[in-house]
């Protein structure tokens, strides 16, 4: 009926193609590095793929990586999905406040949570000592930390999808004799399936490419080995491991995309809000416990620990470094980066939500592909492409220096790194546009462009805001890309401060920078949550 309206035009296809080209650039760069490797500065022979693969525990690392990513993803989807359900469909005391607070761990970088948890829950920590806990490190602690950090993301996306549910369909199903379970699986789940699958996929990509938390917690996965390789300047080895990481994510893609599928966009003029559930004591108790876990471990623990650092530093009379400049720099970089990334993610999200399967699937895969690439490899890949491009186009490194110095390379780096998060969020929003509204606009003689500007954009407003907020938060927490590509712009970020001071055991400064980072994130997050009401 409205197929013609829904097929995206040339402009959006072009935009999506452009994004895909950019996204593939670092891979090209890394391939250049593999084909033309730098001589090892320590005179070691160059490693080949088979060398790396046959190293004693290479398969062990791969298994660990996949296991970590899968576990974290499953846990985050279950917990985040539950919290989304609780937020939209349940009634229990303090529901609104708790659900907002459960999103706040989005403000905490994974390495900060890992670092503060390792300290607080370790044998000498303020929690670990009285409880007699063993050393906080290893695989399972990484699962815990990464799950806590990613659950809010799932909650955010699934909650948005649930909020637009049509109560009439659920009531119809009930009158047809469907019990609660059947109503959920037949009517509600199809509406949120795409959001669940996409957010699960993004979490998987995040977990498999995480650098900071696994380094702090000494968890033996591919990225941890990659970190070692970079430390030993073996970029070739790092590249091979990076390729291994990408290959490890391919089956995960297939699974997630099969589950995701297309989602039905049915618009009802005034969707009746669905019936709310007042659950029994056990369910409420479990939900409150879950809130406690996420808020306690994901927000309170790191904040309290960092305050403790600051207090003991102040008591010891240590000098505190100024943090205003990094705060400002962080804001500037993150706001610009989030805007650019969100903008660029729009075209692929549009295509993925509205185009034919044959076009939507490959666009989704290609767009998300490099999100599994760890930041350091991404940065080097881009540098290599820029260098090669510069020498080809201009004969020397001027173009490269310009790209780095102007920050262009940095923002491309952010784009590639966080495209997945922005894409997932935007796609969910776009897929909820009402085709009947479009049809009536067409009939009224409104041009495509006007419809887009005056009808679609306001509807997408909340979704776009959520996307920008997610990207902003992701960028302020980001480290490796900022370090390698951002320092040339002369800006220092708070994330850098935390990392730098933590490395030098200047915990009081790390605490200040960390709290500022978290405070900034909380400000933006809470400030934008009122938009969510209408998402």
């Amino acid at each position: 009926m409205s197929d013609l309206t829904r097929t995206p035009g040339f402009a959006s296809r072009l935009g999506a193609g452009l994004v895909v080209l950019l996204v593939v650039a670092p891979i090209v760069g890394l391939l250049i590095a593999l084909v033309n490797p730098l001589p090892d500065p320590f005179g070691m022979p160059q490693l080949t793929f088979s060398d790396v693969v046959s190293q004693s525990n290479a398969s062990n690392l791969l298994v660990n990586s996949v296991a970590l990513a899968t576990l974290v993803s499953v846990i985050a989807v279950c917990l985040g999905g539950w919290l989304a359900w609780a937020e939209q469909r349940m009634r229990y005391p303090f529901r609104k406040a708790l659900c907002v607070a459960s999103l706040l761990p989005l403000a905490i970088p994974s390495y900060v949570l890992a670092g503060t948890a390792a300290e607080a829950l370790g044998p000498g920590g303020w929690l670990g000592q009285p409880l007699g806990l063993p050393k906080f490190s290893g695989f399972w602690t990484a699962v815990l930390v990464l799950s806590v950090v990613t659950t809010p993301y799932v909650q955010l996306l699934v909650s948005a999808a649930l909020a637009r549910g049509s109560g009439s369909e659920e009531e119809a199903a009930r009158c047809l004799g469907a019990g609660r379970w059947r109503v959920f699986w037949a009517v509600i789940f199809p509406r949120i399936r795409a959001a669940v699958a996409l957010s699960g996929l993004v979490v998987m990509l995040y977990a498999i490419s995480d650098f900071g938390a696994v380094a702090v917690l000494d968890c033996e996965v591919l990225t941890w080995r990659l970190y070692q390789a970079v430390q030993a300047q073996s970029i070739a080895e790092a590249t091979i491991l990076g390729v291994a990481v990408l290959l490890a994510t391919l089956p995960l893609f297939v699974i997630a995309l099969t589950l995701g599928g297309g989602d039905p966009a049915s618009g009802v003029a005034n969707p009746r809000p669905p019936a709310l559930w007042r659950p029994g004591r056990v369910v409420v108790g479990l939900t409150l416990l879950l809130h406690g876990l996420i808020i306690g471990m994901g927000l309170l623990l790191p904040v309290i620990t960092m305050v403790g650092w600051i207090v003991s530093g102040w008591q010891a009379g240590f000098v505190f470094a100024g943090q205003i400049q990094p705060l400002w720099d962080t804001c500037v970089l993150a706001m610009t980066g989030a805007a650019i990334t969100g903008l660029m993610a729009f075209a692929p999200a549009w295509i993925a939500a509205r185009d034919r399967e044959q076009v939507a699937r490959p666009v989704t895969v290609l767009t998300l592909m490099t999100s599994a690439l760890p930041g350091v490899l991404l940065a080097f890949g881009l540098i290599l492409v820029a260098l090669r491009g510069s020498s080809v186009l201009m004969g020397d490194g001027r173009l490269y220096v310009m790209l780095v110095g102007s920050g262009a390379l940095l923002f491309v780096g952010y784009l590639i790194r966080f495209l997945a998060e922005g894409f997932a969020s935007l796609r969910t929003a776009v897929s909820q546009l009402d085709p009947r509204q479009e049809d009536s606009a067409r009939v009224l003689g409104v041009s495509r462009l006007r419809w887009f500007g005056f009808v679609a954009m306001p509807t997408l407003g909340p979704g776009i805001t959520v996307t920008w907020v997610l990207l902003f938060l992701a960028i302020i927490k980001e480290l490796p890309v900022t370090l390698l590509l951002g320092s040339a712009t002369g800006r220092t970020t708070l994330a850098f401060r935390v990392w730098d001071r933590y490395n030098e055991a200047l915990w009081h400064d790390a605490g200040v920078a960390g709290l500022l980072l978290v405070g900034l994130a909380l400000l933006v997050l809470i400030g934008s949550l009122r938009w969510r009401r209408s998402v």
Partner: protein
Amino acid sequence: MWIMALVFGCATQSVDTQVQGPVVVYSGRSESMVSGLFERLEAQTGIDVEVRYADTPELVTLMLTEGASSPADIIFAQDSGHLGALANAGVLMTLDDDLMNIIDPRFRDDNNQWVATSGRARVLVYNANDVAVSELPQKLSDLSDPKWKGRLGWAPSNGSFQSHVSALRHLWGEDETKSWLTAVMANDPQRFPKNSPQVQAAADGAIALGWVNHYYLHRKTTGDDYGARNHSFSVPGDAGNILMLAGMGIRNGSPRQQAATQVIHWMLSEEAQVAFAQENFEYPTRVGINTHAEVTPVDQLHLATVNQSWLADLGPTRAMLQALGLL
């Protein structure tokens, strides 16, 4: 801001010889340690310095990758091994003798391609309540003694650890290093990702001995009641007593060599060296500057005789550690 840098970048690259524009320093040394020094340098010499902070290995790789297009003028490395690697790759320019003569002969590069600006000592950190001074090992090889079973800590993934093991391979030979590592592993040491948590763990009593760099302790100390202390091995020239040097080199082909040389001069000046010693608790390299009162003077460190390039030989070390399952 970056528009300015864009325009700036264009402008600076279009002139070949000595140009205006900031001296670009790739610093593997932490911002917390050196940014104050650079500010003072700028105020005193009027030279504009633009410092980019990151991990030393990444910066070295970056310089190698960028090659002739690199905007870097100076590399300020956390340890000498990487400076040696850059020198071997022909990236660094030969420095004048008068620059080299400022520092202690022990801390010079043979080929005059880099200078050491300060040093950190490898030490054992121990829990003062748990371990009596008389019990402490006097040689590094004593760590394999079974009496330390379950009481040790180390950080095999840390750069300083790997540099030290590289030195051991040259001091003791491959086989003896390997068997020593295996013996210590039999004592079931606790793994740490880096140095600073070991100091805290020692103070808390979670471990009795940790193998770290000396200055973390001084960062933590709030008084005599702090539970941890540093210990250097008393056998003169023992392989456990190594000084790890941080230093600077100038990129071959940098258009700002004069200004860069001035920067290095300032880093070796009395004022800068005193700052390294008093503020950072490090070992100064300039002849005649004293260490901080709380830090063991360099003569009492009983240093082993080590060629700095040994510390750079990380490749085979990583291979050995991987084969042993430590990496």
